[in-house]
């Protein structure tokens, strides 16, 4: 039953929940043939979840997806491809050891009884490459291609599968200026051929250039739509961050003291370029910027988790040699990682073992663990931080995000940390636990510790920090003293590269 529809792709009332998170709230979305729609929103606004649903990688809890008027039921990721929807993720899905041509035809090889018709394959690939203006040797191994070329291979892959809808997730993030220009031309060309394009990006100037329309998301909901004429930077930013600051942060007045930690001209590859800053006693210093701006990479240098190319880190005037994390831990620098599951906790072990891990020296005598002192100390933190665990032996993987974060916090508090680095401390944590963690950060600052908080949540930054550093592509874009004159708009425009000099 084909009803003629004016839309190539139509989403209605898409709703998606993950444990503890309402990721998408009844989102509508539509795309016509020959149109490029920009999908905008902050980190965590729900853009990735939405495109994963369009790509069939996630399934909706409720709502409908219609392609060319036909209602879709996608069970597995290839179903959406069969319906003509192709997604080009930021991380490409290419097999490095296969050639460009082999990647393009992976899974749909022209074959006779299992023998690949290589001639036909090559001819078709060359034709597609020509169509998209790609100057790539079909026999070149994917490994040897540049990022831009890989992207073209992905696009070619979509085209040979007859995709009518192309979703590009931050396609320009990895490209040079020249390559981006070529991408624009290609997008124009594809539009001419009636292909509908969804363009996800942070870079507003690109959106102005390439999109016919923009749909803005915030907190998992669609908050508005802007037509080509209305595409205006100020308006977009307002829509993206437009939420009101509620009283979700404990108010504290602090008076930061002397400098405790000082970083001078830190460098590491392309991710950290000439970063200098200091952290004072009793201060919360926020570090923000878009995902991938080099925030995490910077603090990992302070913790000795990665090695800096150059630069100096001092604590209380002493230059530190940070060859490995335990060197930093020894002097009282602790990192609460962004990714608790992959880096913060040993999920398969008990909460007590996780708590004890950096503290075993304290709880042991000549290598023998004094289990009772360990248990005693852990008990006191369960009470102090109100960690909800069924017992000491409960596996870390079984805790909620908030309680996992508290276990991580407990292990560092026991270590008597002087400088605490919180990387996205409240990501994936429910509101109640968030507030408790904020309170703890305030309390630690009050006790004279230095605190660095990385966050993408602008309200959180404005609500919690004393000073704010904004990074973009490895560089420090600005340093602001938090106050009434600093707004989400200020931070956002710094983060996306508007060099407004805000005297702070």
């Amino acid at each position, binding site marked *: 039953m084909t009803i003629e529809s004016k839309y190539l792709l139509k989403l209605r009332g898409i709703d998606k929940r993950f444990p503890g998170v309402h990721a998408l709230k009844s989102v509508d979305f539509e795309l016509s043939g020959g149109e490029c729609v920009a999908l905008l929103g902050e980190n965590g606004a729900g853009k990735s979840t939405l495109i994963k649903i369009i790509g069939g990688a996630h399934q909706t809890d409720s709502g409908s997806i219609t392609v060319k008027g036909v209602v879709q039921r996608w069970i597995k990721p290839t179903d959406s491809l069969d319906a003509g929807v192709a997604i080009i993720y930021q991380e490409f899905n290419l097999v490095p050891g296969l050639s460009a041509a082999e990647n393009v035809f992976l899974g749909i090889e022209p074959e006779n009884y299992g023998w690949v018709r290589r001639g036909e394959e090559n001819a078709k690939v060359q034709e597609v490459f020509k169509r998209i203006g790609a100057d790539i040797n079909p026999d070149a191994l994917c490994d040897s291609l540049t990022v831009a070329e890989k992207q073209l291979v992905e696009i070619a892959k979509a085209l040979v599968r007859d995709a009518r809808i192309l979703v590009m997730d931050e396609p320009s993030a990895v490209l040079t200026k020249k390559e981006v220009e070529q991408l624009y031309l290609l997008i124009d060309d594809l539009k001419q051929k009636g292909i509908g394009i969804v363009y996800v990006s942070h870079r507003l100037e690109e959106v102005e250039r390439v999109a016919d329309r923009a749909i803005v998301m915030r907190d998992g909901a669609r908050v508005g739509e802007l037509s080509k004429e209305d595409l205006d930077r100020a308006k977009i930013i307002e829509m993206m961050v437009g939420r009101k600051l509620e009283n979700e942060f404990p108010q504290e007045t602090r008076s930061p003291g002397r400098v405790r930690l000082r970083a001078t001209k830190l460098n590491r590859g392309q991710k950290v370029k000439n970063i200098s800053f200091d952290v004072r006693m009793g201060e919360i210093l926020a570090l923000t910027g878009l995902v991938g701006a080099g925030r995490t990479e910077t603090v990992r240098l302070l913790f000795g988790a990665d090695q800096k190319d150059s630069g100096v880190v001092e604590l209380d005037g002493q230059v530190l040699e940070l060859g490995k994390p335990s060197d930093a831990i020894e002097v009282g620098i602790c990192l609460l990682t962004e990714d608790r599951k992959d*880096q913060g906790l*040993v999920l*398969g072990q008990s909460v007590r073992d996780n708590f004890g891990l950096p503290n075993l020296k304290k709880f042991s005598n000549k290598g023998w663990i004094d289990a009772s002192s360990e248990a005693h100390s852990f008990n006191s933190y369960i009470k102090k931080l109100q960690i909800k665990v069924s017992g000491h032996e409960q596996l870390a993987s079984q805790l909620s995000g908030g309680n996992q974060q508290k276990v991580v916090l407990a292990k560092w508090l026991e270590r008597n940390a002087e400088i605490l680095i919180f990387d996205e401390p409240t990501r994936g944590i429910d509101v109640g636990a968030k507030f408790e963690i904020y309170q703890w950060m305030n309390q630690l600052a009050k006790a004279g510790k230095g605190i660095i908080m990385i966050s993408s949540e602008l309200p959180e930054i404005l609500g919690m920090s004393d000073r704010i550093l904004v990074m973009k592509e490895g560089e420090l874009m600005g340093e602001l003293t938090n106050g009434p004159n600093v707004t989400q708009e200020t931070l956002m425009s710094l983060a996306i590269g508007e060099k407004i000099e805000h005297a702070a």
Partner: protein
Amino acid sequence: MKWVKTIFSSDYGMLGVLVLLCAFFSWITFEEQQPEGKDAADSLNQSIRQDFNEPGRVLIAGRKTDSGQAFTAHLRELLSAAGWEIAGVVEGGPPELGQGLRLAFDHNQRLDVLACEQSFVNLAVLQNFRNSELKKSDFAVMSPDSSSWPNFLKSSNLLNVANQIAVIAILAIGMTLVIITAGIDLSVGSLIAVSAVLATWVIREWFGGDEATVGGMIAGCGLAILACSVLGLFSGSMIAFFGVPPFVATLGMMMVGSGLAYMLSGGLSIYQLPQSFDWLGRGDDIVGIPNAVVLMVVLYLLAHTIMSRTTVGRYIYAVGGNPEAARLSGVPVKKILLWVYASCGALAGLGGVIMASQFKSGDPKYGLMYELYVIAAVVVGGTSLSGGRGKVFGTLIGAFIIAVIQNGMNLTGVQSYTQKVVLGIVLLLAVLLDMFKKRGWRMTS
């Protein structure tokens, strides 16, 4: 089905399997057992004293074997102590029995009882004697009562099982640690050969071969174990410092080790060893339990304590469970990896020394394919190949499951080729079980 899951989900879930296997093999090897040696004498002494109120005259007969002689000697002692007159002691077969009987009736003496082992009761010579000399033949023939008991559960068999698995079980301790760090060590089989050859070579070349003193033997064995731990340390440093995958690093060491053993021995067995060299492998100083088994138990207790009570143990689990989280918590990940591979090498070296002692020689062919049995024991014991989870005692259970299956199949006469098929299937089932456990008993994740 729920209780089945609960049992298998627990750390020592395979213990249930081991018990079931033991029960099964006990059931199918259940048969008439003839008591032997001293036990037989004790039992027969009791029946004779029950049947006869007064001491009489007895002829004792047993085979000319160790257990037969133990039987006759012990019974003679018991009965004479009870006041019986010993008409004679026969050791041997039918001719000796006939002669013994005739001697017993010399000078028209009376005979009350012929106390003999079971195998004598139905001998033709005994029938003939009764038939030919009727007057004298009113003596009773008594032999020890037989009883029903599974061959599998005989204490000698159980000790045999333990002794046969001791080497594999000791190696499996080290392998368990390695696998908990999410690694693997394929070189342990070769290290057995290295150790056995090196220990015996050192004793032969430096400490006078079969004239060697106890000190010399200890020095040779210690040196061999030390060498193996250095080789393990080498694999470990390839893994820790250069990120070589454990499979490849230890595969290389496996070939190196095997080659070294052949080079050192020239491809021949080294057997110039003192008599007492077999103390470790064949001796049984503590209530008849083989020394190797005692050593195995001690090592398991030690390893369990290390894994559960010390910082090193805790770190090993953390390194396997999440190396990045461990590193960021200040765990010395590289040192732990080095320690684990060095220990695994040292235990393989110890295994080689035990094996050399069992065979009283060192041979470069020792330990061939042992790594596979050792890995099988660890996996069957419930240690996860993806690291971070596993228990040392689980491995002991795994090793015993393999030993019991092998022993049971030997007792029931299953061919060795078939045995390999069965063991392979057991290994696959154990891995499947591990997968199901991890996924919460669903088919796919």
